[in-house]
């Protein structure tokens, strides 16, 4: 991951600040930085979103393609994740440098979506055992400024919200051979319910307190952090510790409580902003990459 050179004195300064619930950029321990979300930024995807969190910049594209259901789940579609760490984000990612991080993030995403409630995979089924929609979720890291996981999870949720899957019908003739017919109305499409799609709230242990949405500098001061994926109802779907330090159970409980609290607020504001954006309709002036 992107590293930042920080002197001991700076680290002490940050740690002391956190102790007093006052962070370098003036936030409290449970405050997020300003999040910018825009959906439908890439026209040739089924759904896309771009999220900026501080200087962290994430682009997510969702592509719906026809595939065959997995054998163990014959009447469900599935999601595939791929994370590309662009060398634009940091020179460390050049060549294969970003591969490990990419795989790590993709695996985390697989884990948080690996439950029945997050996305209703049955809506992705076209005909059991034969055809289903596969959603390829491609994440592109454009810039890193701490708290990658949170930003990515927000972007994935926004992109899934934006995803429109064309409606198809399966025609069957007498002999049982099937043919797929595509609706010719471009507005006739399936939307996914993102109600239960979780977001990751990362809590960084700094000193004896923890902060949400750590910047790159703050991350450098932390020895251990906890990724908690929370749904809008405050249900924790996945928990993961990263970093080389250890956490005592006491503080883990504390951190989970914080994440539920913060997560609910995060979901609520994300949901409202997404709906607000959609209500502007197709005539919305797009910001895109030039904004």
């Amino acid at each position, binding site marked *: 991951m992107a590293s930042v050179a920080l002197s001991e004195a700076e680290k002490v300064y940050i740690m002391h600040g956190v102790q007093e619930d006052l962070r370098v950029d003036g936030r409290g321990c449970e405050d997020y930085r300003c999040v910018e979300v825009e959906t439908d930024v890439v*026209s*040739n995807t089924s759904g896309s979103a771009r999220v900026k969190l501080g200087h962290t910049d994430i682009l997510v594209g969702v592509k*719906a393609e026809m595939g065959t259901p997995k054998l163990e789940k014959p009447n469900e579609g599935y999601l595939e994740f791929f994370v590309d760490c662009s060398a634009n984000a940091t020179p460390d990612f050049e060549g294969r440098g970003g591969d490990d991080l990419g795989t790590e993030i993709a695996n985390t995403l697989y884990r948080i979506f690996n439950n029945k409630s997050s996305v209703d995979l049955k809506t992705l089924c076209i005909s059991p055992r034969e055809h289903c929609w596969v959603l390829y979720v491609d994440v592109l890291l454009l810039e890193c400024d701490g708290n990658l996981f949170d930003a990515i999870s927000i972007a994935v949720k926004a992109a899934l919200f934006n995803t429109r899957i064309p409606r198809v019908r399966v025609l069957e003739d007498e002999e049982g*051979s099937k*043919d*797929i017919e*595509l609706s010719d109305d*471009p507005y006739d499409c399936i939307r996914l319910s993102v109600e239960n799609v979780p977001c990751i709230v990362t809590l960084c242990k700094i000193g004896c307190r923890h902060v949400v949405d750590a910047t790159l500098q703050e991350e450098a001061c932390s020895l251990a952090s906890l990724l908690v994926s929370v749904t809008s109802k405050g249900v924790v779907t996945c928990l993961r510790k990263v970093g080389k330090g250890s956490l005592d159970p006491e503080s883990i409980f504390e951190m989970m409580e914080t994440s539920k609290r913060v997560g609910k607020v995060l979901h609520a504001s994300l949901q409202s902003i997404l709906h607000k954006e959609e209500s502007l309709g197709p005539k919305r002036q797009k910001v895109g990459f030039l904004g």
Partner: protein
Amino acid sequence: MLKSKTFLKKTRAGGVMKIVREHYLRDDIGCGAAGCTACGGAHEGPALEPQPQDLASSLCPQPHYLLPDTNVLLHQIVSAWRPGTWASVASSLRLPGSLETYVEQEKGENANDRNDRAIRVAAKWYNEHLKKMSTDNQLQVIFITNDRKNKEKAVEEGIPAFTCEEYVKSLTANPELIDRLACLSEEGNEIESGKIIFSEHLPLSKLQQGIKSGTYLQGTFRASRENYLEATVWIHGDNEENKEIILQGLKHLNRAIHEDIVAVELLPKSQWVAPSSVVLHDEGQNEDDVEKEEEREQMLKTAVSEKMLKPTGRVVGIIKRNWRPYCGMLSKSDIKESRRHLFTPADKRIPRIRIETRQASTLEGRRIIVAIDGWPRNSRYPNGHFVKNLGDVGEKETETEVLLLEHDVPHQPFSQAVLSFLPKMPWSITEKDMKNREDLRHLCICSVDPPGCTDIDDALHCRELENGNLEVGVHIADVSHFIRPGNALDQESARRGTTVYLCEKRIDMVPELLSSNLCSLKCDVDRLAFSCIWEMNHSAEILKTKFTKSVINSKASLTYAEAQLRIDSANIRDDITTSLRGLNKLAKILKKRRIEKGALTLSSPEVRFHMDSETHDPIDLQTKELRETNSMVEEFMLLANISVAKKIHEEFSEHALLRKHPAPPPSNYEILVKAARSRNLEIKTDTAKSLAESLDQAESPTFPYLNTLLRILATRCMMQAVYFCSGMDNDFHHYGLASPIYTHFTSPIRRYADVIVHRLLAVAIGADCTYPELTDKHKLADICKNLNYRHKMAQYAQRASVAFHTQLFFKSKGLVSEEAYILFVRKNAIVVLIPKYGLEGTVFFEEKDKPNPRLIYDDEIPSLKIEDTVFHVFDKVKVKIMLDSSNLQHQKILMSLVEPQIPGISLPPDDISNMNLNGPEKKKMKLEK
């Protein structure tokens, strides 16, 4: 302004793809109205007339433009196009002011709704725009649509809108326009009236599924000429068996029309039928005849042995209609004042078409063109509308037009776009033209052609070299210098494919300036040529071959007869004559060698008309005379073609345009062998050489014409020679010429194939540059396909023209008796050839109203015994020739036997007067019966 257009597409693999296209909207498309300042200089393309001089419409008296919607445009443009009527057609295709009139598809709106809305927006825009332009000049745009909802919406939005019918009816000045409207009644009306005769056509998606799974078969529908209740479907694909499926009965034909691509379902074996040998023509006038039809259908199902049964099917759906406008005549309805009439197409394979017209009386007895609009399920006949009146039946111009149209010969005058690529006159050879070109103006070149030929595409020379060898040159007009690849001129000539020679008319492939002037190798002018020059020894062996672009100056344009005269008169010793003598000598050797190799000398009775110079009526017929000089020119053309074929194939093994003539299957020769055997002659057909030799030996001292007859028969056994692309085929052999490789190089003025060959050769010798299409073998194969089609159609058109003129000739001549030879013997007829006229005809022995004579047909000899007289092939008979006008559309030459005399069948030589050949009287006789 940039917009993106997004749509979903199903891929072939079955997936769904989202496709995004960028759309740049133009802001510089003007309204097209003359004098519009707002649109400024943004005028391009066709402009609207400043004052639309419309036919007065009672619905909107003020001047107006029309803006038809897409469907109206699609269905009515052919029928109602008249200059000035649809003034704004062109601008409606590219909606003006596209920034303001751009419409995006909205939610809940399908693509058609969007288009309708776009046109309405455009109409509205036009009206506001024109108002702004000038206040005193109240121009209006009227929106024409046949869609009820669309019209309602337009009226709501304040756009003056009418249906097509309303508008055309309001044109009080031109009542005949209404006839031309395509009658497309709405679906609703159709079901109400009459009962449903035909089963429904399946939708395309179902058909495709069925074809994939093998339940249905896809093929081309070919209606039978003889029997309107029968058709065959040629199944596409490699599967050799079941290639042809028979369809019998109206219901099974299910509204398919000749040449349509259809899907058929095979019937169970128990319902299979044999092709009937009955001749049936549709004569019904009423709709209610369906029961009668069924009776007739039963009639077809005569008892036949099981072996005769063929796969039988029924049409379940139409994959692609192949309708075109059809020539024919009106059969006026019996009911007076009726506006609905039946139209009988000249092509017997096309069903009769019901049209609505008020001018039936004026159209009667004329050749007209009708287009089909549709065939509802409850209608016995397809519906159509009148398109054009060609003229009176029997008029020479009308008939020529008809035969050109029916044979799909493009014969319109060349368009401005095509003519714009012609060189500017006065034309002369420039420095630039001389690049890569050899100056051969000093050579003594001359051309030899039939009399009256204006498109001279070949010239020859021959001279002795210092080393004692002979230099022979064939110089071909350099047409590819003038026709540059890809331009409109090239495309048009590629489409035409060949010049079509009719009896009194020539339909040029290239504009006259080229065909009769710049490309024609006339004498005493400098012309560009493509030369093929050989160095030969005196026994006509080629020592060296050279191809070059050149400039020549022909010293003489001779006719075959003139050239022959020069060669024969010993006292003429000028350069041209020496050159001709040299050529003639070499040609004789070449010919001998070619025949030794097994080239066939075939014969066909070629006829030439002597035309009256003023009326252009044929006065006399004459079979073509062949002189030595004909074969001299031919020999060198063959040699040039073969040399060029070798060269281009050597250079471009994958995409050389060649010509092949496949060997006929042995079964083709059966008729020839049997016929010869009946005269105690043996014809060997195992190779071309043995065929040629046995034909040469087949002489009968008492019957000198026999050999020609045999050769005529042999010609009939041959296959068609075709163009092909060398990369797409591996059999190059030319059977008739006994050459392993052959192409066409020598007539680029009248054949497009030669133009391509010229280009290939020019690239091969580095005299011209290549272009991508030239080296694309699929493109080349497409060109070949078109050329083969055009050549075939041109041949048919030529034959039809000869037949028509023969009729004219005999019409003026009255009844004549002539000597004839039997060419074929059929079950109930003999086919005879009259050598004097080169005319072939059939003598029938069964007539409708007469008792049938006793006929015994022997397939083996073959012979036909009538009463007590036996007819063999090649027997000499005497026939009477007359013109049968009982069917106005298909006048034909009728022949009846005079000698040998068979009581009750042949005509007594003097008894002509009681023959009744007039149509109406014949009909009366039938009625009495």
